[in-house]
Every structure is written in C-alpha cells, then in structure tokens.
C-alpha cells in the first residue's frame, strides 16, 4: 500500500463534474455530466495517456486534475495533499509544482505581451521578485531549454509560428520546475512535422527533468507511441486502462478506436466496418453501457446495466463481455 502510494503522484477518487447549461428566467438549466466517477492513479515519473473523442470529458478531467475546475463530487490528491481543501494561497504555492500546456498555442499568450513579459509572468503571479539581470538570464535559460533562440524574447506572439508559440507555452509551464505536467492536446492544432518536433521536445524534457505527464489526446497512434499507460474514455467515463502500448484492447470501443487509426503503411490497410447507431447525447445518457448503441457485441444486459470497472490490477476494463 505504502509502496503504491509513494509511486503515485496524483490520484483521482470518484471525480465527477457536472455543468449546468442554459437556463434563464423562464427555462430550467440542463445538466451535463462531463466526467462521471473517475478513479485513476497517475504514477510518478511516467507518462499516462488519456485518449477519447470530443465530448468524452478528457479536457474537463485535465482541468479537474489541476483544480482549474472544481469537482462536483470526488477528490484529487496530489502528493498526499487534497486539492479541494486548499486555501487560495496554498493552491497558488502548489501550482508551482503542477502545470498545464494547452491545446491552442495561437491564443496561449496575451497578444499584448512580448515573449519576455510572458515568460516573466509566472514569477510575477507567484510574487517572486526578479532583478532585471535575473529576469534576463531566466528568460534566456527558459527559451534555450525549449529550443528557441533568446533573440525571440522581444517578439510579440503574432510574430511567432504555431510551433514556436507552443514552445513558449511549454517554457512558461516549466518556469517553476514543476514535477507534474498536464498536456492537453498540445500538438492537435499543429502540422504533423511540428507535432513530431514538439513530441520529441516533450520526451526529452520528461527524461531530463524526471517529469510526470498526463497526456490528453484524441490520437491513439500518438498516445501508443508516447505513453506508458493508456486510459480510454467514452462519454465521461473510463472504459479501459491499458497497462502498456502494445496491450490488446479488450473493450469494443478501444478496438474501434484502434481500427480507426491509420498507420502510415499501405500494406496495413484494413476495411473499416460500419458503425451503426449514433453517439448518445451527453444530456441524456442511457442507463446501460454508453457504447452499447454503437457496439456490435452489445447484448440486452449491456443496455440494461452499466458495466463496472474490473478490479484486477494491470489491464482493467469496464465491459460485460470483454474481447480476448
């Protein structure tokens, strides 16, 4: 137990988040449950991938993990500290150790700030006073660390390419030498050649600084390359946790996701079988398995009763009839 606890940097316990959408003077608000009862341990020094399609709750989960959003129920424990119980000053201190890199590099820096100002901001918000000389050397050090020329410090964001901006976003996140980074689709809005550059940089930083990553992506191919454990989400819930990149999927949804990922190799062509049924509305989830409507293996039990996550350590799956 103590061994497992010390190996685990961040732990999510029964995390649930609901959003109230719409609703005004004359109409009731609708409730959307973006994340439902998520239990997940993020091991120290490793890369945990969360993969799923739009609306599966992966971005909400990322924000809950850093308490950029408050949970409706459940808790997040970071290095033995429960985030929900922290006062704002304590949370600010803790933010030096846990940071996020965002999907959209194009708006991740205030357009009125120079790169230098954007890189000094982490120290300003943490109320750390830097002398002009300290600030200069820190900014140079940060830019060099993410493979950018120190000359860029006086540029404005609009003068940088998407890849350069994402490097600035990474540099900002690393300003206080954190131990934990949440990467929310950091390459999704970049060209493939730039995506590969950024992934290579993130790999290098992880090894070099011993970071723990929570890597959010819709790209199973990329997640299988980059991550030690792979968490698959569907409509707000974890449906499968693969212990490694080569583990065979046991949940039919993971199988579908894997079959939909094309490899850059024409000899591995496959026929895409037809998915029947539509994705259910997140406002009105079925009482059984959320994937049942699209699943070719679905039986009556799947539509009636929601499958629980299997308890066995290692490869875990939430399916009544897992694949072999």
């Amino acid at each position, binding site marked *: 137990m103590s061994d497992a606890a010390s190996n685990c940097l961040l732990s999510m316990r029964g995390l649930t988040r609901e959003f109230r959408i719409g609703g005004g003077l004359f109409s009731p608000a609708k409730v959307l449950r973006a994340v439902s009862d998520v239990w997940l341990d993020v091991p120290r020094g490793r890369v945990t991938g969360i993969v799923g*399609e*739009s609306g599966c709750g992966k971005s909400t989960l990322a924000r809950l993990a850093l308490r950029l959003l408050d949970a409706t129920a459940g808790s997040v424990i970071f290095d033995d500290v429960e985030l929900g119980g922290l006062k704002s000053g304590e949370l600010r201190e803790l933010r030096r150790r846990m940071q996020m890199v965002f999907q959209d590099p194009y708006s991740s820096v205030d357009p009125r700030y120079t790169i230098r100002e954007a890189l000094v901001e982490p120290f300003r918000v943490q109320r750390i006073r830097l002398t002009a000389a300290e600030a200069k050397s820190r900014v140079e050090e940060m830019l060099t660390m993410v493979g950018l020329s120190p000359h860029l410090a006086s540029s404005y964001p609009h003068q940088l*390419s998407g*890849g350069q901006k994402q490097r600035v976003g990474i540099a900002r996140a690393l300003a206080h030498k954190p131990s934990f980074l949440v990467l929310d689709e950091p390459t999704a809005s970049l*060209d*493939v*050649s*730039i*995506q*590969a*550059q*950024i*992934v*290579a940089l993130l*790999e290098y930083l992880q*090894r070099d600084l011993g970071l723990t990553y929570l890597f959010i992506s*819709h*790209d*199973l*191919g*990329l997640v*299988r*390359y*980059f991550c030690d454990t792979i968490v698959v989400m569907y409509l707000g819930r974890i449906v499968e946790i693969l212990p490694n*990149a*080569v583990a065979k999927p046991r949940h039919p949804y993971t199988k*579908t*996701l894997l*079959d*939909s*990922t*094309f*490899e*850059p*190799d*024409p*000899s*591995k*062509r*496959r*026929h*895409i079988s*037809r*998915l*029947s*049924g*539509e*994705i259910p509305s997140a406002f009105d989830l079925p009482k059984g398995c959320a994937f049942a409507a699209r699943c070719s293996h679905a039986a009556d039990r799947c539509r009636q009763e929601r499958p629980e996550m299997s308890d066995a350590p290692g490869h875990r799956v939430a399916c009544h009839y897992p694949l072999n």
Partner: protein
Amino acid sequence: MTLLSIRDLSVCIGRLRPLDGISFNLDKGEILGVVGESGSGKSLTATSIMGLLPLIGGKVLKGSMYFDGIDLTTLDEASYRRLRGRRIALISQNPMTSLDPIVRIGAQIDQMASLHLGLSPQKARARSIELMEQMRIPQAATVYGQYPHQLSGGMKQRIVVAMALAADPDLIIADEPTTALDVTIQAQIVQILIDLVRERGLALMLITHDMGVVAQACDRVVVLYAGRVAESNSVEGIFAEPRHPYTRALIRCIPRGGQARGSLVGIPGVVPRVLDYPRGCRFNPRCDLAQPICYTETPPVHADGSAAVACHFSEVRAHV
C-alpha cells in the same frame, strides 16, 4: 484512362507565385492523394482546378489543365459553371459552413440534382434519400426533413458528400474532408469515399496532411512542398521507397505501432511563406542532406512513367 491532366501549372496572385510548375495525372477509378503541410499549395491546386482563382485575385500564369479533354485554362465562366458541381464536385474541410443553416437537408441535396440533372421533385427526393442511405445515414427519410443544426459533425459531412454526389460527378475533390472530425467518424468517411470510387468508378483527389489517411485510401500520391511537386509515385512506392528527403521526413513524423520511444523526429523549421521562398531547392533550410548545389540550383524533375521526384540527389526508380 486519364481524366485530369495537369502539366507545369504555375499560378500567380499579384506578384506572388504560390504554385510553380505543378504536374500530375488522375485516372478514372483512382484515388490521388495530394499531401503536404499547410502552405504547401494543396488547397490552391484545388481552387485552380475548380476555376475559382479569380475569386482570390489569382490567375494561371502558365501550364495546362485538361479535364476529360477540356482545356480548363481557357474555359469561360459560363462553361465552367456547367462543369462545377455537375462534373467536378468539391467537398470542403468544414462541414459546418458547407450547409445552409435555414434550408432543410433534403432540399439542399434535391437542389443539386434538379439544378444539374433537371430531375422532377419526386425523383430528386427519391434519389436524395437513396444517396443518404449509401452514405450510411440511419433513418435517411427522417434526416431528409431535418435542419443542419440537428445533426452531428460527422452526419453533416456525410450530407456534404451526398450533395457532392447528387449531380453524378466524374471527379470529386475532397479538401481535408475529415480533419475536423473525430477519429472513428473520420475512418467511416474515408471508407465511404473509398467505396464510392470503387463502386462508381469516379476519380477522387484527396487533399490531406495525414500520411495515415494517404496510406489507407490512396492509389497514387503527389507530395507538394512550398508550391512545387517534391515527389509523386504510387502509394506503395511513396511509402516503401521515398525518394525525396521531404517525403521521408513527412512519413517519419507519424509514429508507427510499436515504434520505440524517443525515435520520433520532426522536421526542423517551418514551411516558408510565399514571400520568403529560398533560392534553389525550397526544402534546403530543413533538409539534412542539403549540399551547396541545393542552395543555388532549382532541382530538375526526374520523371519516369508515373513517378517523379525533384531532388538533386535522387534517382527515380518507378515502383511497380
């Protein structure tokens, strides 16, 4: 049989020359992948074929474009209008803006059929529903009466494909048709497009930046870089023996299943903007093999049958 033949096409917009000597052929019953990063000229090639260059202030500087024996470069606007939508259909990247939000789905598909084929309303309706069923749209008759906002993104893109097919075109140009969609939906749409070409024998020009989609769907591939063709070949040739350093680099950017950690390499730098095209080979700032000649001389195109490569240091061997 060659349906579309483009030879040495150069396009200018003002003083800029964003396309410079593009050549490729597209046969009936074939899927041609046009790949490259943003800014490589993929979409502009489609714009040129559709005859929409004047809309963005561009014009064909030199070269030829033949579609089924028709010279597109000298075609007047009235004749082009009879070609567009009827014989050459375009599927654009964003399904959300391709549909009119205040017109019912069915009416939008009907309109294409009645406009180009002169079908009666009843026949057009029956045909539209049949097309929607071919697009694997469940309860097509219900969807026929719905509005775009009632459908998901994947469904809308299927409607857009159905609209493109409504006038029974010979050539479909699909400009990043799946980029905005989720992976499972993307796979479905790609499969629908492949089935269409195989069943109907039409030609598909698939513009994409995704080498995975290319490997899955295409018969032949044209790799564009900074407004020029870097390499073109059969899909097997492109992936098994890429000749151009850019093609090699592009393929290496996508992780393969089981690829070891730390072995993914990107391409350093970015695609230059039209204003900043370097002298010589335009890939030279990002190429790990660049020699002095690459900085001074534009590489000649080595062509051999349907394969071609523009690099000083590649001999072409057409892959059979």
